[in-house]
């Protein structure tokens, strides 16, 4: 099962009384692009953040390429070998809704920071690759600019390149276009689409129905902390099993048409 890149089993996450993610299981195979859609507050982002331990789960387990990186049994964290956990987490890259670029570092420095500090690479070893990534996201000319000087779309493309600079196997994207002005959404989606075309494994929380429908291999619908459907876009967008989804899609597609 080495092609099973991400294996989420019965994961739960509570915030105090609120159960944000309830007993969710989800598998992503190598090269698959999976989007998570659903109404706000349905636990999509929380689930994504649980994967790379920005949130700590209180039930279930998560494995990356067959190796568990976190497991909770009967409310207790299972002790896992730290090295394996670290190497598992290293296979994950993350793109945030609000970019979270390092404002005191130039674009190229944002890209090479983690490879230099975490992987102890020399600048000369990583910079050519970083430049390559910048040209891939169409920002070669911004290498020496500081994030404050960039548009939202440019910032997010830098953030994608920064995540890719660590050579992740799986890219997690948390509403990558939700903080953007409408006219800047396209340039970011184009980059994600290109990555999908290169068979980057991706899990994308999104409100962009067209992206979910046209680019993704599978679409997962979450509602009130549960996955209520996990299907191909063709199925989910035309003939979902759940009436709740129909309602949601009708509203979203109307909104998109209105724009």
């Amino acid at each position: 099962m080495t092609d099973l890149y991400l294996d989420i089993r019965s994961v739960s996450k509570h915030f105090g009384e609120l159960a944000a993610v309830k007993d969710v299981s989800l598998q992503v195979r190598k090269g698959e692009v999976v989007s998570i859609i659903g109404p706000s507050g349905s636990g999509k982002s929380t689930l994504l953040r649980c994967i790379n331990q920005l949130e700590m789960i209180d039930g279930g387990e998560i494995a990356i390429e067959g190796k568990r990186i976190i497991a909770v049994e009967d409310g207790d964290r299972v002790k896992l070998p730290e090295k394996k956990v670290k190497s598992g987490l290293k296979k994950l890259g993350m793109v945030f809704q609000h970019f979270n670029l390092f404002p005191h570092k130039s674009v190229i420095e944002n890209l090479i920071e983690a490879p230099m500090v975490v992987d102890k690479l020399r600048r000369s070893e990583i910079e050519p690759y970083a430049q390559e990534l910048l040209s891939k996201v169409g920002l070669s000319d911004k290498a020496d600019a500081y994030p404050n000087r960039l548009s939202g779309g440019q910032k997010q493309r830098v953030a994608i390149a920064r995540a890719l600079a660590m050579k992740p196997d799986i890219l997690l994207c948390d509403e990558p276009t939700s903080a953007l002005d409408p006219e800047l959404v396209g340039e970011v989606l184009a980059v994600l689409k290109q990555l999908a075309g290169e068979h980057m494994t991706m899990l994308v929380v999104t409100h962009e129905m067209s992206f979910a429908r046209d680019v993704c291999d599978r679409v997962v619908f979450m509602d009130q902390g549960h996955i209520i459907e996990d299907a191909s876009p063709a199925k989910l967008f035309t003939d979902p099993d759940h009436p709740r989804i129909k309602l949601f899609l009708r509203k979203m597609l109307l909104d998109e048409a209105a724009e």
Partner: protein
Amino acid sequence: MDYTLQVTAHLLRGCVLTLQIYAVTLIFSIPLAVLCALGRVSGPRALDRVLGFYGWIFRGTPLLLQLFFFYYGLTIFNISLSPFMAAGLTFVLNYGAYFMEIFRGGISSIGAGQYEAAKALNMNYWQTMRRIVLPQATRVVLPPTTNEAITLVKDTALVVVIGMGELLRSAKEIFTRDFTLIPFAVATVIYLLMTSVVIRFFRYLERRMAYYD
């Protein structure tokens, strides 16, 4: 004119001690305060409490009283510090307390997104602090730190109470001997020169750190 030069020379000798205490205070209190601030922000609650107590004591009592305590007060525990040791210790702990609170605020002003981005890139705690959080916090804390650094120039005059001959005391010595205001005028000029250097230096730092606007 000769007289004024003589006075100035005498005051500059007093100035040496002022500058020594100034340097010792900044060199030791700033790193101390960075560690204490990190302890308050990311350490266990007990450590936060202890450091909060330290800040409360040293910010809540007069510097003069603290100076008395470390010079005279410690003798009841059979600890006898030289005037310079006592003054250095007092100033480092006192300014450390103020800097700790300033730096704590600066570190807290860095949003959670920066920590999350660093964590998602697999940076550990020290890497995150050293490379991402502290450089940004430094910029935030520069203006209040400048204020403290200016105040410190003048606070050094307090060491006269434990018998040390610094700048202002040298001026007073001449005043009592010759009954002229010239030494105070010269002292005024010297203090202004010293604070100007401090202001210039910090303004230079602020400009250097504004590169990413």
